[in-house]
């Protein structure tokens, strides 16, 4: 059994000020920020760009704390799969730990983090078109 990853869905760049880092990438590199999201309850401020099929996600705290300098790093990535249940089962069958799939921020999608067996890479699966999408999403 294999996890059957079809492509890299998104890559996460974490920052202590994600708006500032996204703005720097826009100014210095010409990367267009297409979407910004700050949802109450998520305690995160997210900004998104897209390079062909891969989303670049800038993730940081919803409330930016005082800092001396903005610090960002390449964090991890999310692989798209066609069957997240099978993907998680494959990881667990190999003896590693993965969380139960749960609704993702993306409407209709389901998400699960792989917690071990990734050689230090924060890694997760996402499957789209699993859940009903609320009107207006």
């Amino acid at each position, binding site marked *: 059994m*294999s*996890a*059957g*990853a*079809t*492509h*890299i869905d998104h*890559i996460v*760049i974490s*920052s202590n000020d994600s708006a*500032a*880092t996204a703005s*720097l*990438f826009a*100014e*210095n*590199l*010409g*990367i*267009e920020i297409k979407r910004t999201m700050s949802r109450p309850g998520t305690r995160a401020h997210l900004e998104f760009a897209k*390079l*062909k*099929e*891969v989303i*670049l996600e800038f993730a940081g705290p919803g409330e930016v704390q005082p800092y001396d300098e*903005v*610090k*960002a*790093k*390449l*964090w*991890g*990535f999310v*692989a*798209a799969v066609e069957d997240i249940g099978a*993907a998680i089962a*494959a*990881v667990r069958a*190999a003896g*590693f730990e993965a969380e139960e799939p749960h609704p993702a921020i993306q409407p209709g999608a389901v998400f699960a983090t*792989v917690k071990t*067996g*990734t*050689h*230090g*890479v*924060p890694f997760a699966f996402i499957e789209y078109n699993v859940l009903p999408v609320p009107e207006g999403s």
Partner: protein
Amino acid sequence: MSFKKIDHIGIVVKDLDAALATYDHNLGLKAAPGRGGEVPALGIKNAFVPVGESDLEFIQPLGTEGPVATFAAERGEGTFMLSLEVDDIEAEVERLRGLGARVGNPNNGVAFVSMKSTHGVNLQLVQRNR
């Protein structure tokens, strides 16, 4: 914007063969035959694992010198670098410099953006099909 796509994510590992076996076994992701190998000039060996239109590049340091070895010593295994494919490396470097980014001179189709221009993210530009 002149970036074509995400070319690859560079991942530093301590044992290349073990990492490839793990990603194959756990995630069904297989190394591309004939790509990668030892790069003595950089003090590394590497392998590429395609995932859709992008790759994962697994990089093992072969010694104690160089940025990959330093990363492995200080942080262990993990995500190291993001690589963006461009059509024309020289033109792209000039474009980014015009935007205010600090970018090294291209060498063999590769250029690095200063981490001072990315808040610390290790960013590479690469031109394929030269």
